[in-house]
């Protein structure tokens, strides 16, 4: 077994995670975590949909921000995809997508304030980078032959419209729909930094112990996501896209003086601002690195590695739940519901809830990341096993799992896992805002104490870390010859 590169790689990652556990802060610090968890589930079972009108408004705003953000991101991303072969464009896109939506929101909040533009840009900017990358990959997959057969003198646009777009249309549409679902999740969590979406409502209900209100919100959110195929119809799309900007709410007006001050003063490193010049810059950077960046990086990496392996383990445990090689329809239906809930809940919301219940440590973050990502990959792998046809005398039970299925799906399982490595790290960094000492914690603290110059450096470092992991993940996938479709 050890001669397989895939097995060796898995064991190395498992070992790293186990060593990480020695250093990680894993604990339940709440006084009575199980009672709180029980109260919470009771709240979900007894949802209160009518406590205030706030809930419906929050739902409407969530949908509106998602539509406007994803539309703007999709259009920009499409045009970027057309010029994606140029290195500066690729670097630019990698950079803007390496910064999480919430970080973008925190930045824009500082100078646009609670204006709808903050929420729209927070979604549109990173999504442009993601769309550009995936759209360009999809367009590259198009069959080049019809293009070669066109009569010479055919215009570039006509050639593109006739030979490229139709060939990838289905994939472009599927991916955009998937991104819209992600957009709804992103939009919901923007509420945690104060925008008028579901996250805001959830945080308010939670902090007041109104679990039934929070439960109602979660249920509505699942229904919203699960019914996407019903209410997002090609014919209705133009209506949504044109209508959504009118439902973003008014927010507060933009003070342009703030915008100017942010760029000309706030984000200039303080030694430069105070006229200490370059001589003061080095100690400033040094202090920032030692006191904030390095601990932040260390915790982010440790948590990411533990969460990655936990995601893998959960995936391997969860995929049989929906695989039709095991059990009966009842178990599969409940398996589907479990996986749908796990993957529809943004990891940020899961982490927030678990953190409220178990108290601050890395544990809620690990569990939240593993549940969400394990739900996504488990669903994909489970579906994949349904296309496998076993011989009729294949073993049953655990032997079927370990001898017939796992060996067959292990490569695509690893491919998905390494594909999501960068995503897990992005999320890990952002969970710091909730009080876990990852990079997001230091960014958030710097912003709270109006040290925007430091916050910007820390965000840059986070982006670099993400880009680094993305490159490493791609390298490993290439080394092991693993392939994935981008829709994951």
């Amino acid at each position: 077994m050890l001669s397989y590169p895939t097995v060796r790689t898995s064991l190395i990652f498992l070992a790293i995670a186990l060593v990480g556990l020695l250093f990680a802060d894993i604990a339940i610090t709440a006084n009575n975590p199980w009672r709180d968890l029980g109260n919470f589930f009771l709240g979900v079972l007894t949802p209160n949909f009518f406590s205030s009108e706030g809930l419906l408004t929050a739902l409407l705003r969530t949908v509106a921000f998602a539509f406007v953000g994803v539309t703007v991101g999709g259009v920009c991303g499409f045009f970027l995809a057309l010029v994606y072969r140029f290195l500066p464009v690729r670097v630019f896109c990698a950079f803007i997508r390496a910064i999480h939506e919430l970080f973008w929101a925190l930045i824009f909040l500082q100078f646009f304030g609670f204006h709808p533009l903050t929420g729209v840009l927070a979604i549109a900017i990173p999504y442009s980078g993601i769309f550009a990358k995936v759209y360009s990959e999809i367009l590259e997959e198009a069959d080049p032959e019809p293009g070669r057969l066109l009569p010479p003198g055919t215009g570039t646009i006509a050639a593109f419209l006739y030979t490229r777009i139709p060939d990838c249309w289905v994939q472009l549409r599927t991916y955009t729909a998937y991104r819209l679902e992600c957009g709804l999740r992103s939009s919901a969590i923007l509420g945690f930094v104060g925008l008028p979406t579901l996250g805001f409502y959830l945080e308010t209900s939670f902090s007041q112990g109104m679990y039934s209100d929070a439960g109602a919100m979660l249920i509505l959110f699942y229904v919203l996501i699960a019914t996407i195929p019903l209410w997002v119809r090609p014919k209705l799309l133009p209506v949504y896209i044109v209508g959504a900007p009118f439902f973003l709410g008014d927010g507060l007006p933009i003070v342009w003086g703030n915008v100017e001050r942010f760029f000309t003063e706030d984000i200039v490193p303080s030694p430069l601002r105070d006229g200490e010049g370059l001589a003061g810059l080095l100690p400033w950077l040094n202090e920032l690195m030692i006191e904030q960046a390095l601990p932040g990086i260390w915790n982010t990496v440790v948590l990411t590695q533990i969460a990655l392996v936990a995601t893998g383990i959960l995936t391997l445990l969860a995929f049989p739940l929906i695989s039709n090689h095991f059990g009966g329809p009842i178990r599969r239906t409940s398996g589907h519901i479990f996986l749908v809930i796990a993957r529809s809940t943004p990891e940020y919301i899961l982490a927030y809830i678990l953190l409220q219940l178990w108290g601050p440590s890395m544990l809620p973050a690990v569990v939240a990341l593993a549940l969400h990502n394990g739900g996504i990959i488990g669903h994909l792998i489970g579906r994949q096993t349904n296309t496998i046809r076993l011989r009729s005398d294949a073993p049953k039970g655990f032997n079927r799992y370990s001898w017939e299925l796992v060996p067959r799906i292990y490569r695509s399982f690893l491919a998905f896992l390494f594909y999501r490595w960068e995503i897990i790290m992005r999320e890990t960094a952002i969970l710091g805002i909730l009080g876990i000492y990852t990079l997001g914690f230091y960014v958030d603290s710097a912003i709270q104490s109006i040290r925007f110059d430091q916050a910007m450096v820390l965000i840059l470092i986070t982006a670099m870390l993400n880009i680094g992991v993305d490159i490493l993940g791609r390298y490993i996938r290439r080394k092991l010859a693993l392939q994935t479709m981008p829709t994951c």
Partner: protein
Amino acid sequence: MAGFDLSGLTASFGGERVIGPLTLKVKEGDQVALVGKSGAGKSTLIRLIHQRVDGQSSLVPQELGLVNALPVFHNVFMGQLDKHATWYNTVTLVRPFKQDRKQVLELLDALRMSEKLWIPTASLSGGQRQRVAIARALYRNAPVLLADEPISALDGPMAHHVMQLLRDRFKTSVIALHDVEMAMKYCNRIVGIQNGQVALDEPTDQLAAADIMSLY
């Protein structure tokens, strides 16, 4: 440009020469059948000619090169994208103009598949797909036809019908065929390819089927 005179045609795959160097002169009115064993280099030669005449030809490649998601109409219309402005082509993508619909329909009628006009090519059978590629070449209406096994998926009567059509519509053509009988019947010149070289080049009326068989 109706005929062409190409010399120094060569092609290599992975450092190994598969074609040439060979010279091929085709006059206006030549209807050439390329014959030879599979792997002799017929397809490569067709591609080479297509490149050397700068695409000034109606090409039917073996892989057909259809855009599967588009209906038959648009796949055929693609043969004349260069004749119209971009806005015209874009509008056609959404809603084709009447005169174009009529022209394409007539062509499909000649190929006996007019009822498939709005069907996506992905859902057609192999023979129907081949006829769509042929319709595109006919619609393109270039002075020279280059076709690589254009009737390989067609049944007997349809194969004869299509070869007849190609002979009538294109004065000058180079068609790779593995069916010697078809080659003798519908082409006026036979070029045999063996090991990437021209092993035979005669007018059809001076050849017997047995002469060609020596190539196989």
